[in-house]
């Protein structure tokens, strides 16, 4: 397991692999929670610094690597919100004030980016039928007409797409 090998990693290979697996979705999460790309990059860098510094403490039985990384990112984002709350606000500035508001918004953002990451792992064809049916609100018949794909294929593809998504979410330990 990559995190278990991290304390002995001198080349950076294990860290690079972990970065490639998780940095994109963590960055999406941090960007949506902070609304600032630069701050989000700082959060991502900090998450990975915490990861290698505390890799020896990681307990696989308590949480998946993804859950652990999101927890670290979440704490950094809460810190950033607190710092922002402590400074004087501009009149036009919209920000989350209470801890409860921040918590609720972050819970939503975590799920949002985990689902986005799961969708990104589907094949483009599977992602497209889910996008058209769920987000676009199109029926199977409408999708078939729009894409030129036979109706039977659209139906079976949609079922395969959902099964694949369920497997990916199971692997990511995300339950409905």
């Amino acid at each position, binding site marked *: 397991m990559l995190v278990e090998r991290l304390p002995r990693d001198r080349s*950076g290979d294990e860290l690079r692999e972990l970065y490639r697996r998780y940095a994109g979705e963590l960055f999406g999460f941090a960007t949506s929670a902070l609304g600032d790309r630069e701050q989000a990059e700082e959060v*991502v860098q900090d998450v990975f610094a915490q990861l290698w510094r505390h890799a020896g403490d990681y307990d696989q039985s308590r949480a998946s690597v993804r859950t652990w990384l999101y927890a670290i990112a979440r704490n950094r984002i809460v810190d950033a919100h607190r710092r922002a709350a402590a400074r004087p606000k501009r009149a036009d500035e919209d920000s989350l004030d209470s801890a409860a508001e921040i918590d609720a918004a972050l819970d939503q953002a975590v799920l949002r980016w985990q689902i986005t990451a799961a969708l990104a792992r589907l094949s483009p064809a599977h992602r497209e039928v889910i996008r058209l049916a769920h987000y676009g609100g199109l029926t199977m018949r409408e999708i078939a007409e729009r894409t030129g794909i036979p109706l039977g294929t659209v139906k079976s593809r949609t079922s395969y797409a959902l099964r694949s998504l*369920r497997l990916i*979410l199971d692997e990511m330990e*995300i339950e409905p």
Partner: protein
Amino acid sequence: MTGCREYGDLIGPYILGALEPDEVEEMSRHLAECDRCALERRRLAGLPALLDYAQADDTIAPLSPQLEDAVLDQFVKERARADQSPGRWRRFAIPAAAAAVVILAVVLALVLPGGGQRAYARAELWSTSGKVLGNASAAKVDSGTRVQLRAHDLPVGRGAVYELWCVRKDGRWINGGSFQARADGTAAAVLTAAVRPGDYHVVVVTRRSVGGERGAEVMRGKLKY
């Protein structure tokens, strides 16, 4: 479990609410009778609610290469500092480490490619079907790069001669020479290619070239420097 043969393809559209009204009625009746489809429906039923958390145009944004560099740079520097920090064990460790270095130097001179040159990059070699067939390590020598290659399960039915290629970052393939697999499909070879460390990132093994045409690809691997 994927639902029954007749109605299995309708479960996904049914869950997403993307069937026509008559199909919905038909599927609802079927679900009341078919345990297999009912179980599949329960497994997938929570997905629309999860999908609602994301938005149609959400995508994982590409990260700047500078961020990855910054993360790795910080890692390497912290590790180097940690390795240099003194500890109580140090006075015992230094003589032990010195002895180990001498032993290691002798061992490396005997086993490493390039007549004792240290390997600066390694690659696992994967077949086109996704199976690991071997590995390669690259060491710098005066004339370029010496690649030590080990492989197994090579197809030997249509001739057992293979060629090694180093693919440069500009897309050019540099030939590293040919080698022969044993009858049992294993191979061990040391070859030299006119490339320098950092110039290339992929090594490829192909069948022997015929009439100037490069042979079919057998395996390839990305170098980890």
